[in-house]
């Protein structure tokens, strides 16, 4: 197909502005209108530039999504623009995070992701949480309703406060975590409000929630009701712009008289708790030969001891302590790896661990790459130093 031949005289005529003695032309009306946006090759190259380094490097794998911030000076003004602000929400979607000790769990973050799904179309996400939480704005709370802190263990008082908040504010959906603590709270709230609870939802969209029933033989589905509790790893956490986390007023709680006279927590004995359930695991690999010192360290840290397959094969640690694909898959919050290279079979066992600390002599070990804090040092020097430091403190 050949290109259309241009007719400059006709184009000029089309640009002429009528009237006036002198001929006048306007280019505005005649600019070619095309549906395709015009490419800007310079800006595209700019977006592919990898920050740092003296030589320009282009990263052609990133497909436009996230633009690396190159200029430090411009980034603050950009980030202030990127706050999500909902001034007049049409409705509210409440999230009641578990947040043991003020720290949001991965499931809590997923709850915020689910809430943003439900809040699409003019809604705002309200976090109902005790004050003193880390970064509620970052995980996606448009509003924060500060619940009165319950000093001792009194689930009924907390349920009463949540139920009251749900009644008094215009809340369309409330999301709970289907965990021991959150599931208990959700059911108490449901019983208080006399409403059904969609317990243990496994998938969630604005139109449909599903849950297993009858011993996981059937799937129940319906439009999301007001109270929903969500199981872990079913919805992605919120990944959008930071929210404003504006505080809202909640009604003062009504004092309740509980039947609970006293409550005390008995911590699990780290030496006997099963490895898969342990909260904090200290693990030794082939780089550790001083096993008694390692076990002392585990005791001093009050952590559960684990090991890589090399140590278990060598008979230095019991097989029950093996971490990894053919050992135990951990559910721990924190993993301290001493002298472990980080073979894929080993890393599979710690995919669920949020925090990893590695001590290794090899800077290029895979475990060092995986770790949040990596120490390149001899484990045999660090272990006694750790024990000494733990003994020194009050």
């Amino acid at each position: 197909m050949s290109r259309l031949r241009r007719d400059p005289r006709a184009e000029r005529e089309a640009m002429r502005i009528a009237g006036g003695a002198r001929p006048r032309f306007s280019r505005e009306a005649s600019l070619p209108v095309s549906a395709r946006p015009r490419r800007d090759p310079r800006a595209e190259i700019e977006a592919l530039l990898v920050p740092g380094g003296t030589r320009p490097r282009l990263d052609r794998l990133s497909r436009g999504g996230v633009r690396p911030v190159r200029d430090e000076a411009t980034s603050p003004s950009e980030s202030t623009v990127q706050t999500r602000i909902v001034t007049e929400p049409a409705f509210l979607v409440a999230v009641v995070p578990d947040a043991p000790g003020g720290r949001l769990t991965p499931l809590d973050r997923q709850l915020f992701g689910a809430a943003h799904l439900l809040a699409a179309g003019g809604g705002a996400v309200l976090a109902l949480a005790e004050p003193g939480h880390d970064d509620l704005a970052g995980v996606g709370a448009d509003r924060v309703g500060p619940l009165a802190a319950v000093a001792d263990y009194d689930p009924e008082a907390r349920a009463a406060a949540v139920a009251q908040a749900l009644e008094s504010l215009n809340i369309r959906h409330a999301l709970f975590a289907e965990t021991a603590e959150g599931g208990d709270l959700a059911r108490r709230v449901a019983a208080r409000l006399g409403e059904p609870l969609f317990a243990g939802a496994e998938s969630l969209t604005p139109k449909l929630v599903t849950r297993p029933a009858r011993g996981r033989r059937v799937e129940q589905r319906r439009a999301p009701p007001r109270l929903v509790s969500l199981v872990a790893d079913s919805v992605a956490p919120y990944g959008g712009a930071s929210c404003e986390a504006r505080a809202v007023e909640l009604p003062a709680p009504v004092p309740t008289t509980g039947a609970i006279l006293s409550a005390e927590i008995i911590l699990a004995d780290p030496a006997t708790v099963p490895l898969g359930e342990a909260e904090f695991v200290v693990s030794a690999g082939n780089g550790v030969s001083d096993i008694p010192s390692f076990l002392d360290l585990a005791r001093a840290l009050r952590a559960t001891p684990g090991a890589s397959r090399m140590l278990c094969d060598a008979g230095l640690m019991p097989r029950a302590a093996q971490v990894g694909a053919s050992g135990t898959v951990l559910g721990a919050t924190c993993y301290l790896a001493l002298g472990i290279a980080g073979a894929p079979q080993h890393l599979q066992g710690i995919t669920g661990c949020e925090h990893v600390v590695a001590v290794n002599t090899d800077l290029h070990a895979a475990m060092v790459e995986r770790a949040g804090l990596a120490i390149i040092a001899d484990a045999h020097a660090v272990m006694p130093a750790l024990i000494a430091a733990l003994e020194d403190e009050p």
Partner: protein
Amino acid sequence: MKIVVLFSAGRHPASGAPCPVPVELQALRLARDLAGADEVIGLHAGPVDGAPLDALGHGLGRLIHLRMAQGDDPLPALAQVLEELAPDLILAGRIGQGGEDGGLLPYALARRLGRPILADAASLGAGDDGTLTVEQALPRGARRRVVLRLPALLTVHPAAAPALPFTFAAARRGTVERRDIAPAPAAASEMEERAYRPRPKLIARAAPGASAAERLKAATQAASSGGRLLVDPAPEEAAREILAHLRGIGVLRRRG
């Protein structure tokens, strides 16, 4: 002490055949250990009494079966009978298996009866003057010891002591009392049911446009939290850094 254990119409998760829910049998054992065999009554509301009958063999002496039609709401009947029996303690399973499986009934019942409810009991001990010491199972093997004023309702956690073994003689000896109750049709729900289909679990968050290699990496390695690297520090400094980091995460417990 009079204890009522609630039994649901359990079904085996694999075969679908009627069978008692394991955690309810554990509740029965807790009740027997606390109050003796004669003080424990089983209560079941449902159309047929297949599964709860097995509980007789696991050490239940007396079962009250409230007969109702399929799909009726068991809550009013249970509440009425429990008000009549007025037990000091009511035990229930944590979550049923074979029905709605929502675990809401004990809470609704407690609300209706005006009793406090405590979830996830793992062991029970009698306290003095009308109190009960409950060890509550928490995640990660921890326990919470709660002292509770009776009467109360408890749900039992699978971490409780295992159920008593089934004996045929006990199953023969146990008595069942059947009562007919006024029908209470359940409120219509807009729930739709289908065959269960396992949903893919979210494994890791790779960026939406990421390449296959990146997605594999995200799935197998999880996110590293923007690691800090210390090369060849003095052992004391390394120890200090590690402890500070652990304390920041909040896994390090104070001793004592």
